[in-house]
């Protein structure tokens, strides 16, 4: 057989098997086109990033609030201590002045 006849036979048009078109359409519907798949993946990724950032911000805010509360309570105690000491000394001085005044 000649090369020409071989080529003619190999490149001969053939009809597809029955149901081929239906199978292809079904697969397209199931998997979607490649470009749609990429868009879905991108959307999911961005939502995950946004959720992570939100969670990080919330946790950071909570930690800051806890820290500030602790600092505030500590400052309150320090103010009370300082005022107690100052008040004691002032009262003592006033009392001594009154005592001296009453014995004069």
């Amino acid at each position, binding site marked *: 057989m000649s090369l020409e006849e071989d080529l003619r036979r190999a490149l001969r048009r053939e009809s597809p098997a029955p149901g081929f078109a239906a199978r292809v359409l079904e697969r397209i519907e199931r998997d979607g086109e490649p470009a749609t798949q990429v868009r879905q993946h991108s959307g999911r990724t961005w939502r995950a990033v946004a959720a992570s950032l939100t969670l990080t911000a919330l946790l950071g805010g909570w930690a800051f609030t806890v820290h*500030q509360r602790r600092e505030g309570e500590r*400052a309150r105690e320090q103010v*009370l201590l300082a*005022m107690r000491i100052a008040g004691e000394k002032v009262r003592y001085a006033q009392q001594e002045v009154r005592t001296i005044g009453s014995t004069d």
Partner: protein
Amino acid sequence: MRKFIVALTLMLLAASPLAAQQINLDFPGLADRAEEVVDVTLDATMLRLAAKFLGKEGDEREIRDMINGLSGIYVRSYSFAKDGEYDRAQIERFRSQLGSTWKALVTVRSKTKDNVSIMADMRGERINGLVIIATEPREFTIVNIVGNIDIERLSRLEGEFGIPKISKDGRND
């Protein structure tokens, strides 16, 4: 532009006497020798924060009102195991920082009890700061309040406010 600079300079010079004096409350080496130390350092920011956490009734409310507008509260108190553990010259050095605007309101001297000196930074009729110096043979205390404080209201504070003295090793007494 030149007039603006001159006016600004004059304003700053006029305002400077109203500014509160910064007093050095460092006493090197005393904390190591003391049995008990109280060290309170509260600037304006910390006072504003503390005010948010003070109660709305009784003495805490009174204190909250009193500290409104103060620029700072500083306390150094040292208690020692024996007489003569601190150098009175350090107290005199501290006192020498107080400028001419400082006036002695009360001075109590006793051989057996506390010596107390209360001094106020007077700017006209207004008190701009208060210093209380209390000394005993085994203890001395300095309180510096920066800002306008009502001494009468201070003396009326009766309670301990549930705040114990903190000993040197951090235990509450």
